[in-house]
């Protein structure tokens, strides 16, 4: 059977698996662009106070002498209606977007994965209840849910994140569910069951490792979409409250000065686009790498 070796693997016979993956990933230009955008955005968000030209502009500073200035060498993205540097505020705004993605997916992905494993492995009522629950969640747009929650509680970032996470886990449940269904009929699961392995062991040690790459791909793609939903919420005035810079809020505030002062809304809007694009390209690249099928 030695003549059916994967040609790509034959090219690099002695290299480690991780390095092979990295090599294949690095040959995919769009994936690399995505990874660079994501890494740069994370670094910029962490070191925002040190790399931005006017870090104090991230707060409630007014500087009316410089209001509504177009992009220039001094103010790269121009200034807003109270004279703050938009470039500085965009970089700080990345913090809110990335935190949102981290918190929402940090709760939704593990929870959704566990529910998917359980629903996929156990039959009967457990499966029915969990999967019907995901059907219901699909019928509610995350944005609308977040709006409804914001109407009852106060409109702020924490509540929005809760509302989005409360729906988002179901996507991962559906993904892991369908994978678990396929995997559990395979022989190695049967072998583990025969050997008397615990349910816990089978779910987390046998099935879960086979789902990890698909989960990683979906999570990366989701980052972009969660950021978009969050930006829409803050655009509607339900995001983090001022003066903390938030990209969606900045677009909304700047849109009052269209079209003359276009940079005030277009620059932060473009930043959201680039950030979401980065996560999307990265996710696409990972999908090609792990050869994960389009899953919905």
């Amino acid at each position: 059977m030695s003549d059916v070796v994967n040609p790509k693997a034959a090219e690099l016979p002695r290299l480690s698996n991780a390095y092979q993956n990295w090599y294949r990933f690095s040959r995919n230009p769009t994936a690399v662009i995505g990874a660079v955008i994501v890494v740069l955005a994370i670094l910029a968000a962490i070191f925002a106070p040190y790399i931005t030209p006017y870090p104090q502009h991230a707060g409630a500073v007014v500087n009316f002498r410089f209001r509504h200035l177009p992009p220039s060498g001094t103010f790269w993205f121009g200034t807003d209606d109270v004279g703050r540097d938009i470039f500085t505020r965009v970089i700080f705004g990345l913090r809110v977007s990335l935190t949102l993605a981290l918190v929402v997916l940090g709760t939704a992905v593990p929870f959704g994965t566990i529910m998917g494993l359980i629903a996929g492995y156990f039959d009967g009522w457990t499966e029915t209840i969990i999967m019907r629950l995901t059907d219901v969640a699909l019928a509610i747009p995350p944005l609308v849910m977040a709006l409804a929650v914001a109407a009852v509680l106060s409109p702020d970032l924490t509540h929005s994140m809760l509302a989005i996470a409360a729906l988002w886990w179901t996507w991962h449940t559906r993904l892991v569910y369908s994978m678990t269904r396929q995997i559990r009929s395979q022989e190695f699961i049967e072998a583990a069951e025969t050997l008397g392995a615990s349910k816990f062991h089978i779910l987390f040690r046998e099935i879960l490792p086979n789902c990890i790459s698909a989960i990683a791909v979906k999570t990366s793609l989701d980052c972009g979409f969660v950021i978009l939903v969050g930006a829409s919420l803050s655009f509607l005035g339900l995001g983090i409250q001022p003066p903390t810079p938030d990209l969606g809020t900045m677009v909304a505030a700047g849109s009052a000065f269209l079209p003359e002062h276009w940079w005030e809304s277009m620059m932060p809007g473009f930043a959201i686009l680039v950030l979401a694009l980065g996560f999307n390209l990265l996710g696409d690249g990972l999908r090609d790498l792990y050869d994960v099928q389009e899953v919905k």
Partner: protein
Amino acid sequence: MEFTLFLIRRILWSLLVLFGLSIVIFVIARAMPGDPARLALGPRASAEQVTQLREELGLNKPLVQQYVLYMEGLAEGDLGKSLLTRRPVNDDIRETFPATFELVLSTITIAFFLGVPLGVLASRFKDRWPDNAVRFVSILAAVTPSFFLALLLQILAGYVLHILPTTGRLPHNIGFVADMTGLVTVDALLRGRFDVFLEAWRYLLLPSIALMAATMGQIARITRSSMIDVSSQDYIEASRAFGVPEPVRLFKYMLRPSFVPPLTIMGLEFASLIGNAFVVELVFAWPGMAAYGVRTILQKDLNAVMGVVIVSGVFFVVVNLVIDALVGFVDPRVRIRGRRA
């Protein structure tokens, strides 16, 4: 017969989803921290007033009983009274929903009739430049925030090129009321007002484009991959060997089964489409239900918000039901298998 059974199964499933949805909404409305009576009366109301309203609304009864009361109201189609407009929520939604419906309808139509051909094109030229171009456009469309695209379109078409109106549904002075179906384009045709029909489309175009971008990208990508899947099937190879002409093979044998995944995706995408409508309607001052929803949320108008959420959910479920029926019609195999089995 078989098709009828399939439809009955889907309708039962939809009812189940709606039942679940009602529980979710009830939980948001009643079981969450925050007192609806206090919300309704505002911070200045006295404690007695709040207690009185709590009794009126039945908020002092046990939760299960409250749910039953709430469902009775829903079953009668009573969504309560809006605090913002001081009118029944039903009237407000009845007035604003047609505008949203018209926008969503034109969005889906444009997305489907642009997305499917783009996907076919990409699959025909797989890994060549048209494929890459379509891939680039669909990724870009998927990651562009709809409010950003909406503002961009307003600037370009409205302020720079001056070719399309940027806000509203019809000019105020046109003297036309859509009082038949509520859909301006349809009513205009029914009344033979072709000028109004064209004018309505000019107003519909920008919001529809802003709203359809992400969906169109998804449809193009899914169509591409399912066309590629289908093209490697044996029966396509066989039809090629038999010398079936290219167009017949492409449109009859390949495109029909390839319709199923994009249709299904469109149903699922519909939830995020409704979500985005909230943003797009606001930007274009579109007098729809979503814009009404946003206004009422900022006013903490609980009844109105719940009404909007319920109607959005029902809208989603009905659209998916229609799509399921369409899928079953296009692909007979689905009727037997059941879509989510």
